[in-house]
């Protein structure tokens, strides 16, 4: 066992490019629900249930939600990220291996139930009404 070193809460860079900043909105504000959960002890899965087709198109757009964006937000390897875009449900689903073993000393979210928040805060251009 080794001493745990926990990096300080750094200001995580947001993914919003400057060009969309003035008219930008968080994905969570355009969603009916954003949720995360374990998919078995070794995987995290999260879903963006978007309000409508216009909001879905933003969530499904690789410019805003991609393997690289998830890798950056959750500090995982982009090659391990799986993204499922489901237009019939206006849902984007994202899965990746749990970076911290469930129930271990470092696991602070046993059900991975609160891990959706960084995803929900991703900023996208405000869709046209």
């Amino acid at each position, binding site marked *: 066992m080794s001493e745990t070193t926990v990096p300080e809460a*750094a200001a995580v860079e947001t993914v919003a490019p400057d060009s969309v900043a003035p008219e930008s909105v968080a994905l969570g504000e355009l969603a009916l629900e954003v949720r995360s959960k374990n*998919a078995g002890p070794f995987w995290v899965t999260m879903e963006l249930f978007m309000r409508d087709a216009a909001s879905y198109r933003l969530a499904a757009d690789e410019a805003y939600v991609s393997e690289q964006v998830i890798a950056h937000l959750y500090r995982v390897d982009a090659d391990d990220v799986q993204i499922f875009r489901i237009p019939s449900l206006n849902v984007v689903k994202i*899965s990746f291996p749990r970076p911290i073993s469930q*129930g271990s*000393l470092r696991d602070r979210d046993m059900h991975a139930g*609160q891990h959706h*928040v960084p995803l929900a805060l991703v900023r996208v251009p405000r869709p046209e009404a």
Partner: protein
Amino acid sequence: MSTTHDRPADSVRVFAPTGMLGAGFAESTVERALALGADVISVDGGSTDSGPAYLGASKPKTTAAAVARDLRSLLKAAARADIPLIVGSCGTSGTDSGVDWVAGLAAQVMAEEGLDLRVARIYSEQSAVDLKEHLSAGRIHPLPPLGQLTAETLQSCTHIVGAMGHEPIVEALQSGAQVVFAGRATDTAIAAAYPLIKGMPAGPTWHMAKIVECGGQCTTNPRAGGVLATVDAQGFEIEPLDTDAACTPTSVAAHMLYETVNPFRMREPDGELDVSDATYVALDDRRVRVEGSRFHVAEQHTIKLEGARLSGYETISFSAIRDPLVLGDLGRWSALMRTIITERVGQTLGLSTDEYAFDLRLYGHNAVLDELEPETGPPREVAVMLLVSAADQATATAVAKVANPLMLHLPTPDMDYLPSFAFATSPAEIERGAAYEFVLNHVVESPTPTSLFRIEMGETR
């Protein structure tokens, strides 16, 4: 038992009262399910979701009174309607003692209620010795993200279970069981077993089983209780048992996403469910029909293994900070805390950093998401939780006791006086006992679909 294994059925109605035995449901749920002609009751009794301790220690998450309450309702319903009751993953983790615990509670309920039902227990615990033979024969394979298994890892587990498919449950029912208490089973197997006996097609049956696994979760009101699903030759229909709740094409389709990595394909021991082409159609404002689900039978039947081992013993201590001066410099304060704890533990206990570990969590600041936390800004108050792990309880507690004066008085690097923080309890240390970790995510090629499981048939009174 008069519920027939001999009559060909046009359809089979599966009643799923709740997502977990012991979570509770309204009696009206049961009444309505029976009135609608339920053919079988299936309910899940477990999960890995709450962490490795339940498997590692073989302890249930649910309390006996809540499980007995649900069993009383369901056993009476099963007896009254003369339909089978199937419980999977008994005792949370599905260990042998979990099966015996649920079966023991049921026996007590049946004695009190004067019920005579023939009970089967299906045990799913696996011995490391047997599994080592499978391993050396090349019959155990890792699932991502884990790698190849070693014999040492198998040997280190306190408990290993195999997640059965429908086959052992089918065998128990066909041997005359009216009630089945299964060890670890796939969430779907308990709902799929009876429709498969009655000749329903695998695609719709397994898809239905996935949708009903969490009871009312596939409805517009997840808290409202259970569901009834009717499987037939072409598909299945599903409706909530609370008349105020609804199943909609979206609520049903969305449940395929729940706790799954891939929302279109799901592996079972004998094959893979494929819902890529499934259609969801509203029959009215609260019932949905699903068609187009397929099941691809695998060339090799496999059983997924779950195993947990002791990772150490833990002691917790927590204090709280309200002082804005400290909260304004929390990053440096917590870094200093980590450094000084490590120094003091070395000085006083002579422990090197590989002999213990600790996590310092700042609840109210970044404890939940840690370095993933996107928000910044000083919090109003923060709980400082020190979680220590060591190979034995005494060492974990000793480390927490060494840290105690710091948890009470550590200033920030800029303060020239000693603050006093707010301890929540006295004594400050809380011994958590043994802690566990999951170490298996592997499948074993099973010689037959039932050979890794043991069925014990009980007699009616």
